[in-house]
């Protein structure tokens, strides 16, 4: 494994250096039919789950075949995607914000051939490589974060939890059998790199134990004032302690004030909080980002804790299934999950979804908590 240089010379780092050129321009990669009709689209139809047709003023049509991906993709897998695009869609493709892959072709016949081809490709162990779906009133791909695969603060895995939930709702990915689109999102800690807080169903990794304090190293690795300032509840204060006969500068934590956000750990590596029994999942529900019919909404916590159960998180899948089924059965056409919950009332939501309401679901964090308490006799039994 000899080191091979691309041309960079560390002795003269500025020599020949190119920087701040930004991304490649988007229109270099348009399929010709897209380039010809940009800004002149008349309407679209979803021919069948996973296959869209867009009609342009020119009379031209473009057929898009959408398939799901695992987000974490190897170069071999991406090269296979390229092979398919070379064969079917003129060497052009795109990715969606929900980690789907889209191939665009110019005839319906070609689109259906492509769909069959995509659905036929499988990994050696049997799972699909490119399942077609993710459109309309169904469940599309889960956007997610890194989890145990690559992150230093997660309370759970992301790729694994997403895999088991997508296995559970696989039929709904390839169908239009929901009352409205149902978007599931996953973030493996409260930092929410995936910003799941406005999803129909959100899976959220969560810690439940206050940070450990690594007194031996803390003062060397951390700026104590930053660690203190990092805590939104004022649970951390500077202190001194005896360690191996020496007085060291460190912090003390008022455990009962900790709500386990992990911000102190982000600022100070000597305050880790991950723990096998302490960590697990929160389920939130009823959020959305579209302005359609009702305003964008935050998701609400509906299950305060599910333990981590790797490798297949059976309790997680079971709860998602309960919510999806209750919603599918009860909601009206066009009604998003949150709108359904508001129409029937949250007391009915818990009943219909078979979820227990506990004290942990009553907000007690700062001012916004008050606006979620009930101040009316208009409740249901």
């Amino acid at each position, binding site marked *: 494994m000899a080191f091979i240089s691309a041309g960079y010379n560390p002795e003269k780092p500025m020599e020949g250096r190119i920087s701040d050129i930004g991304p490649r321009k*988007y229109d270099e990669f348009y399929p010709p039919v897209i380039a010809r009709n940009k*800004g002149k689209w008349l309407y679209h139809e979803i021919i069948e789950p996973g296959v869209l047709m*867009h009609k342009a003023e020119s009379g031209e049509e473009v057929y898009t075949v959408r398939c799901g991906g695992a987000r974490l993709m190897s170069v071999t897998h991406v090269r296979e995607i390229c092979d398919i695009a070379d064969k079917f869609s003129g060497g052009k493709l795109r*990715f969606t*914000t929900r980690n789907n892959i889209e191939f665009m072709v110019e005839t319906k016949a070609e689109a259906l051939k492509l769909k069959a081809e995509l659905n036929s490709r499988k990994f050696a162990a049997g799972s699909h490589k490119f399942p077609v779906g993710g459109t309309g009133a169904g469940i599309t791909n889960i956007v997610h974060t890194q989890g145990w695969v*690559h992150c230093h603060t997660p309370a759970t*895995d992301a790729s694994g939890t997403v895999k088991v939930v997508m296995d559970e709702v696989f039929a709904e990915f390839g169908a*239009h059998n929901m009352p409205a689109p149902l978007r599931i999102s996953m973030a493996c800690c409260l930092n929410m790199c995936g910003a799941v*807080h406005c999803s129909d169903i959100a899976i959220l990794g969560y810690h439940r134990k206050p940070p450990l304090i690594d007194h031996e190293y803390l003062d060397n690795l951390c700026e104590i004032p930053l660690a203190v300032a990092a805590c939104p509840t004022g649970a951390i204060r500077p202190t001194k302690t005896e360690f191996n006969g020496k007085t060291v500068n460190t912090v003390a934590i008022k455990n009962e004030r900790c709500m386990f956000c992990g911000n102190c750990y982000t600022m100070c590596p000597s305050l880790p909080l991950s723990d096998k029994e302490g960590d697990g999942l929160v389920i939130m529900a009823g959020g959305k980002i579209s302005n359609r019919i009702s305003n964008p909404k935050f998701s609400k916590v509906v299950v305060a804790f599910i333990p981590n159960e790797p490798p297949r998180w059976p309790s997680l899948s079971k709860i998602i299934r309960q919510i999806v089924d209750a919603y599918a059965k009860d909601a009206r056409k*066009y009604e998003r999950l949150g709108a359904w919950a508001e129409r029937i009332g949250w007391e009915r939501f818990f009943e219909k979804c078979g979820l227990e309401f506990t004290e942990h679901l009553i907000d007690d964090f700062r001012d916004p908590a008050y606006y979620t308490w009930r101040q009316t006799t208009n409740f249901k039994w």
Partner: protein
Amino acid sequence: MAKHKTPLLDQLESGPWPSFVSDIKQEAEHRHANPAGIEYQIPVDVCDDLLGLLEMSYEDGETHWKHGGIVGVFGYGGGVIGRYCDQPQKFPGVAHFHTVRVAQPAGMYYSTEYLRALMDLWDFRGSGLTNMHGATGDLVWLGTSTQQLEEIFWTLTHDLNTDLGGSGSNLRTPSCCLGQSRCEFACYDAQDLNYNMTLEYQDELHRPAFPYKFKFKFDACPNGCVASIARSDFSVIGTWKDDIKIDQDAVKGYVKGEFAPNAGAHSGRDWGKFDIEKEVVALCPTGCMSWDGSKLSIDNKECYRCMHCINTMPRALHIGDERGASIFVGAKAPILDGAQMGSLLVPFVPVEEPYDEVKEVVENLWDWWMEEGKNRERIGETIRRMSFQKMLEVTGIKADPRHVQEPRTNPYIFWKEEDVTGGWERDINEFRKRHQR
């Protein structure tokens, strides 16, 4: 023969959804076979060791990635995230495993030629594992060593004509929906605005100078396919001011059942015959529509452009012609003080090259936030701490009922001295002439 036994991860190879475990195993085998004879620049068993380390996390219920590590390329403060595993002796292939964020083309269209060139580079100098794409939008490469970073950057800029994305307390890689390229709802060219703003603010993207991260996201219509209103500090959402265009013949086509409502999105269930009264008129949140049995009417002045009727009958209804966007500021996930939705700052702005109206708002906000924001305070939190009024003041925008859901319910108004006739300075002796002690 796998380097590490992974009985737990192996259980994620079953089930129909694409298995990331199968894919990593496939890549591990590919690297060992090395059919193209590549002189890999990081250990050949990097994928095996990643699986081994991940299996350990599945056993322990805890991550095995260490906190932090400052690495990057010369002159940039963002784009690379240092990552080291906490079991380097057992898994030397992933002892260091840094993330590289690569700027994605707006709308995430690719040619296979470009995508293959990117993959070849990552095969040669990295783990061969990617995210297509990360949550913010970048094309993310998972796992390389420090020595490779400048080399990767060199090839990206010299040979592939692209750049790193953003990380840290700076402008994050902007992202957008596909906009006018393939959507009839797009009210402005989201890809072009995204591209233009990305190039304009390269310095802010690569050199951290902000209190904390700052995200631009561009949605070309109120459907919000990139979720800009929920997860970007500066969200531009397309809208229009004039009338929705109606094709009455196509409306009748929907009523007669010739066209599937909602573009066929509900095809998987029998919801009964399409009922325009129930499914469109009655669901209109402003009640501005009516149907007399043969003609659909919209009182456009009362419409607030939620998109429901247009989504439901895309052949019959079309967005208006006086197009532009609304700007929302301050959305974020819960860390630290709770989640915030973007708040409306500019109800309507034309979105045309060179986009000066949009940039002026951004730059005024940044000047203020860089002056007043605390360490790790998102702009949405600064606005809450300093007030909406302060944001209006620094951006020179006049208050408007569109800025609020409702006026305040408390009368604790912070009048300024200059607002009050005669100011605040008064003479107590003059007061005492009128009032005995």
